């Protein structure tokens, strides 16, 4: 469940970072406003799902602490990737979502 929560936080922050004008320009060249707005919604939704996954895994109190900790390192990871391999941000985010879904299914089985 840790993996699910972290992957969701990571994907959430990745989309949020790409929804920012400057980062969007750097990665995609242009500025497509609609796409950025979509990314912002999706980013917050994923981040929220990360919080729910943490709460499901640890309970509300401990889950809140775990969510903040995981989110911290998800954000740091996104920042480093944006610096050193900006093109990978979207791809790793997609991979993270797949991992989260697969792991959630595996746990539900």
């Amino acid at each position, binding site marked *: 469940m840790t993996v699910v929560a972290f992957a969701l936080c990571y994907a959430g922050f990745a989309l949020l970072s790409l929804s920012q004008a400057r980062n969007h320009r750097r990665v995609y060249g242009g500025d497509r406003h609609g796409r950025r707005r979509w990314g912002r919604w999706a980013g917050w939704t994923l981040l929220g799902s990360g919080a729910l996954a943490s709460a499901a895994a640890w309970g509300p*109190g401990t889950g809140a602490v*775990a969510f903040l*900790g995981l989110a911290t390192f998800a954000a740091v990871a*996104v*920042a480093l990737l*944006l610096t050193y391999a900006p093109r990978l941000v979207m791809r790793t985010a997609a991979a993270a979502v797949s991992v989260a879904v697969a792991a959630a299914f595996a746990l539900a089985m």
Partner: protein
Amino acid sequence: MKGGLRQSMAWLHTWAGLPVGWVLYFVFLTGTLGYFDSEIDQWMRPEASLPPPALSQVEGLALALARLEQVAARAPRWTVFPPSGHDVPHVTISWSTVDASGRPLRRSETLDATTGAPFRTRATGGGQTLYQLHYTLHYLPSATARWLVGICSMLMLVALVSGVITHKKILADFFTFRPRQGQRSWLDIHNLVGVTALPFHLVITYSGLVFFVFTYMAPVVDATYGRDGRDRFFDEAFRNPDIPPPVGAPAPLAPLVSLYDEAVRHWGEEPVRVASFYNPGDRNARVVFTRTHVDPVSNGGRMVFDGATGELLDRFDRRTGPMVVNHALLGLHEGLFAGPVLRWLYFLTGLLGTAMIGTGLVLWTAKRKAKLAPAGGTPPAAVRVIEHLNVGTVVGLPIGIAAYFWANRLLPVGMADRAAWEVHALFLAWLAMLALPWLRPPDRAWHDSLRLAACAYAALPVLNALTTDQHLGVTIPAGAWALAGFDLVSLATGLGFGVAAVVLRRQEVAVAAAERLPDGMPAVSGATPLPEDAAG
């Protein structure tokens, strides 16, 4: 102080942070190590560090009582920590007694589950002394240390809040890191580790103040309870159990199993963190169970039994609102409820906090030196002093902590005051590292310190292999991850300092090359410079 709110907050951020930065760095780093105090304890007591045999809490309590009846039959109070997961791997007991000159003294033992006798380990401060440094400051009287740490924490809070206000683009720059741009890169790291872990920084700093709130805010208590009423206040606030004096009539303790079952019924499995026995062996004996930490607000629950009859006299886990808040903050700070994943998160986030303070200190001198650089002037004495303190602390303190571990392995086992000398080694090594920049130019001092730190940590597993039989070749196959983890983290730390030394060297070579080029062409082209200016 001039200009708008942001400028005045920048001023406040700088001058609240700088004077206490080194103390805060010490507090954050030693406090962070406390999240692995138990693992450090195990590593520093190689004689007792084999994975403990699985012992239930009831068995642990029985083992403890057998030992206490043997060695402390006449003590007025026994305290037992039965095994409870991470923090208490072995049964630990303590009792009060008097020394040869009649002064009160507390004795404690860690019991070997296979023999029931105490481990015969080397005298060491272990992980406990190391993490306690962050509020005892070791050489200072406890009241002075509390106030000093309190003032520093208060200024830390001021620096955190003013830092957030003065940060121009806290959201736009949330993910920003621009490497190889000198002062701007330092600022980016400072902002990144500060902002991403802001909830941790705020909660840890604020809850740190709450620990000693009754010291800092004593007049508030005195106003209601009077100066002599402080004990009464604590009894009421914490609902301390009412312990009657012994009557002098002997009575055996009620069977502990039934008391324990009662605790399991209310609190679930492994419910007892501490079991206290007041007036043991007397008809007025009282047994008090304190609950284990299972989540941030579960600590503080308590059960009081009549020790002779086994009757449950009082139980509370629902506390008043303010006490829930108090316990939640302390629980969040200590993180005792944390399982392995959460514990690592606590540890790593603590390192981010340490990094935030360290980069803040470095940034202060980098800014002032950058201003002076075009003029080619030498920095004023104050800037030089602060730069020296920075080298000596940011890298010097980790070296001091390495010295603590080295001393644990190298000091003779029979040495008098051995545990005290381990701590002296920490502070002496730190002092030596503080002296180094006065003997070497600051740039050289950074290099020397980083290299020394790299060696000191990378060689720890080797030292461990030479002095004990619990090296990585044994601990990894045995799956003893507490011990193996210590060695592996030491290796990683050494590697980290080594990489830092190499990066610093490369940058200096690049800067020197750039200075030789005409028109100040940048020799290293980093990421495309962004049009926006740096914050702060």
